[in-house]
Every structure is written in structure tokens, then in C-alpha cells.
């Protein structure tokens, strides 16, 4: 292990493995985090010396997010409840989503998000928890999702102007939407608080059977001075899923 990348894994890709079994296995492999987990799971992770680099539990869904003002009251209540719990557990991020467009134009979506996030940023800033909006593809997996281009997410970050609002740059999703990964990461590193992986096309192993040269991308991430986590978020095709996961981590361990 080179210790330049902090390795994390998304729990949902290994749903058929019991959480404690997964925790034990991945901590032995060198992972420091199991993520996309809520308050009930955080203590279990802790038992195995693992953190949760990207917690969840306050959102409604990928499709229903901050671009819809009718959801703001509910979302604000959720995030105000969860953020102190995140901080109490010693964690520092919480995931969030734009929601689907539902015919909203870019500008209205941005304005609605700004209105919603301004209500919870004081709490996030008080507890030093960073809201991370995930960039997702709207071509293959999440049709109509609004935060589907880096520029839109960066614009939202700029309008909010807070260190407690950043982006989750998903390399798989952004290769599908934009390409030009390394330049985008270099130009926007100050806005990115977390990374996800996945092979393109197909969202499977990140090895030689797909089109992204992951070690080169990881080296570029390290060069930006990034000290956060990179989470494996692919669906293994091989029977030994944990072996696939270990290999994914090794590919990213530059």
C-alpha cells in the first residue's frame, strides 16, 4: 500500500455479503472505509476500525432532491437531524442530490438548490460537515438527473460559496457524460470532496476490460493534493466479488 489514496468501498455493490463479513474482509485488504451507509451502520463499521467516508441517510432519493422547492421543508428537517449525528460519529461528509429535472431548466434548478442549501449550510458549517452533491450520468443510469455535468455542479458550489458544499465526482458517470477526466479534475479540484470509480462501459471491474486508465487518473488526483477518499463503486462480474474489489483497490493504489 502506497498510502497516497485513502480507499473506500460502496456497500451497495456487495449487498449479498453480510455487512460484518464485508467489513472484516475489506479492513484486512487495506480499506479504511465502507460508505453509503447510515447512522445504524456507522457503529458496526467502527467495530472493524472503518470509517464511513461518504455517509447517507438524510436524502430522499436520487430523483427527489434540492432542485424541487416543494421538498425543501422535508429535506431541511432530515439534514438538520442527520448532520449532528454525522459529526457525533466523527464523520465529515453527507451525500446529497440535485434530483431529476422534471422540465426545470439549468438556471431554475440552480436557484432552487441555492435556496434549499442556504437553509442547511449554517448547520453544516456549525458541525463542520460537508454536503457532497454527486455528479451522475443522465444517459445510461439516471435519466433526467439534473447534476449531470461538472460545470453545473461547480456553478452551484460558486453560488453557495461555502467550504461545506462540494461535489462528489464519479469518474464512471463523468466519463459517460463528458470524458476529459484528468483536465476536469485538475481544473476543479477545489470543488471536489470525494471520488467514485467504475468501469466504462458497463460499470463493472475497473481493470483492463474497460476504457479508463485508472492508475493515470489516480495519479492526477494525488497531484492535486487530494487527501480524501476514493471509493470503489462497480458491480463485479466475477464470482469472487471480493477478489474483484481487492484488484480494484490495487489498481487505484498508485
Amino acid at each position, binding site marked *: 500500500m502506497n498510502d497516497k489514496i485513502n480507499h473506500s468501498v460502496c456497500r451497495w455493490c456487495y*449487498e449479498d455479503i453480510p455487512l460484518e463479513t464485508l467489513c472484516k474482509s475489506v479492513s484486512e485488504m487495506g480499506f479504511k472505509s465502507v460508505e453509503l451507509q447510515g447512522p445504524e451502520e456507522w457503529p458496526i463499521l467502527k467495530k472493524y476500525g472503518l470509517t464511513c467516508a461518504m455517509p447517507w441517510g438524510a436524502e430522499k432519493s436520487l430523483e427527489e432532491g434540492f432542485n424541487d422547492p416543494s421538498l425543501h421543508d422535508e429535506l431541511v428537517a432530515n439534514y438538520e437531524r442527520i448532520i449532528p449525528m454525522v459529526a457525533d460519529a466523527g464523520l465529515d461528509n453527507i451525500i446529497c442530490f440535485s434530483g431529476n429535472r422534471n422540465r426545470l431548466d439549468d438556471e431554475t434548478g440552480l436557484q432552487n438548490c441555492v435556496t434549499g442549501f442556504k437553509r442547511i449550510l449554517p448547520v453544516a458549517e456549525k458541525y463542520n460537515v460537508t454536503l457532497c452533491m454527486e455528479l451522475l450520468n443522465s444517459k445510461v*443510469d439516471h435519466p433526467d438527473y439534473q447534476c449531470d455535468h461538472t460545470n453545473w455542479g461547480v456553478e452551484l458550489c460558486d453560488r453557495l460559496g461555502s467550504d461545506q458544499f462540494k461535489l462528489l465526482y464519479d469518474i464512471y458517470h463523468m466519463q459517460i457524460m463528458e*470524458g476529459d477526466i484528468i*483536465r476536469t479534475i485538475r481544473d476543479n479540484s477545489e470543488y471536489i470532496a470525494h471520488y467514485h470509480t467504475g468501469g*466504462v462501459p458497463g460499470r463493472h471491474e475497473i481493470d483492463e476490460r474497460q476504457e479508463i*486508465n485508472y492508475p*493515470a487518473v489516480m495519479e*492526477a488526483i494525488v497531484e492535486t493534493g487530494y487527501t480524501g477518499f476514493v471509493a470503489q463503486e462497480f458491480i463485479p*462480474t466475477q464470482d469472487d466479488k471480493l477478489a474483484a474489489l481487492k484488484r480494484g483497490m490495487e489498481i487505484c493504489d498508485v
Partner: protein
Amino acid sequence: MDRKSFLKKSVMAGSAMAAAPGLLAKNKMEIQAPVKGNSFNLKYAPHFGMFKNLAGDDLLDQIRFMADAGFTAMEDNGMMHRSPKRQEQIGTLMSNLGMEMGVFVLDKGGNSKNSFTAGKEEYTEIFLDGCRKAVEVAKRVNATWTTVVPGNFQRWLPIGIQRAHVIETLRKGAEILEPHGIVMVLEALSDTPDLYLRTSDQAYAICKAVDSPSCKILFDIYHMQRNEGDLIKNMDHCWDEIAYIQIGDNPGRNEPGTGEINYQNVFKFIHDKGYNGILGMEHGKAGDGKEGEKALIDAYVNADNFT
């Protein structure tokens, strides 16, 4: 949070992609290629100047070096500006060596000049004149493909009108090229946002509209990684109109393995599709001097090492 339905969808979408065992990450096992006698699965086409330290300044020596190294094709953007005598020397030597000629750029005054989008007769005439000259050059160098860049946007014209102008202009060019079996390949570029042709789907729609065996796509992997990503999917979408491919890693536009593209798998995809055409090495070198040129050959041997 419901990633379950999403998970199912993704698994179904990906189930056709069977595991391919036995491949090792190229970064883990670099091959040191010999300078001579490599054998490639695909027809990679170097440019003049790429091996000038190893082969010397003489163009014909450079072609002999390429052939010795195992390259079975060569491309030369500036071929139209060489003397007819030089063109004939190049063409004769390449056919003696069993090498195929790749693209040269069809001269219409520059990538951004005399834009087809404008629908101006004088611009069209410049292009058609270029087509006639390209036929003569192609005959001298045994070329089939010539690169065409439609030019810049004309911001004062509605986009559909610009597109129609491009299609009409290309149809006129195709009429000149078709009897000679010459194919103009349209290249979408990422150099400036002013260039009209930007994406592979746009090139595809235009080729379908021109509807000629002499108007096809040049899919430049470097430019498309910068403009759209999702390389394998997008190539697959456009496959029946792709007649030519060019290479370059991103960022930096150097040889495979110097950037974010896993060329080994991209080449495997192209090979598995049954591609028999040329892949132009339209990029620089990451290293300098003879070492940089050897590293470039190594990079192709490694990227070509797919099963």
C-alpha cells in the same frame, strides 16, 4: 434511498460483457519492444518526423524505418503540399514495402477557413477544387482517405441552416470523389469551440444525410475523449459510418499509456469489431530523442497486446 432498482438495471445492462480472463494491466507488465520486426494486430500509421532521431531526416528512410519496426501504414496530413515527384516517391516506396497510405488533409484553406456552414458559393468552390486536387494526389500516393473539417460555426445563421449547408457542400464533394473510389473522412475536433463539427453523433447524422460511400467518419479518439467521453459506446453507435480512426491519449495528446485512456481495451474493441482500416498516430511523443521514439514503439506494442 433506492439504489436497488438502479442496481438491477445496471446488472442487466452489463450482463453481455463477459469476463475476459488472462489480461494483465499494462502498467504492471511493460513490454520492451524491439525497434525492428514487431507484428501488430491493427494497422497503426505513424507520421513523418516521429522517428527522425532513429531513422534520420530523409522521409524515405523514415518510411523504411516504419516498415522495419512493423508498421503497415503511414499517414501524412501535409501530403497535398509536397511536390508531385515527392508524392510519387513516397507512394512507390510504400507500395514496394507493402504499406498502406493513410489520410492526408484535403486542403480547403485550413480547418476553420471557408466554412461549409456558410453556404457560400465561393467557399464551396474552394472545397471542390480541393477535392479535384485530392483525387490527383491520392492517385500518386495510392491513398483512399482524405480528411475533411467542415470549418467554423456561422453564428448568424440558424443551426439547421448551417447543417443543411454542410450536407449540401459534402454531397457536391462526394460527387467528385466517388468515381475515383476516394473517401473523405469527416473529423470532429476539440481544438476550439468555434469549430462546427464537435461530436460523433453529429458526424454520424451528417454522413447518413450525405449518403455516399465517399463521405464517412474519421473518429479521432483524442478529440472525442475531450469532447464527449464514453468512447466505446459512441464508437459502437457510429460504427457503420466510421471509415478511419486516429489516436492520441488525453491529456497531452501523446502516445497510448500517457493519459487517461486504456488504449489496450479500446484497440481490443476495435479489433473485435472486425476493423480492417487504418489507425493514424496523430499525436506527439511524451519523451525526447531516440529514447522517446523507442518508448513510442513500446507503447504501441503494449497497447496492441490484447487477446
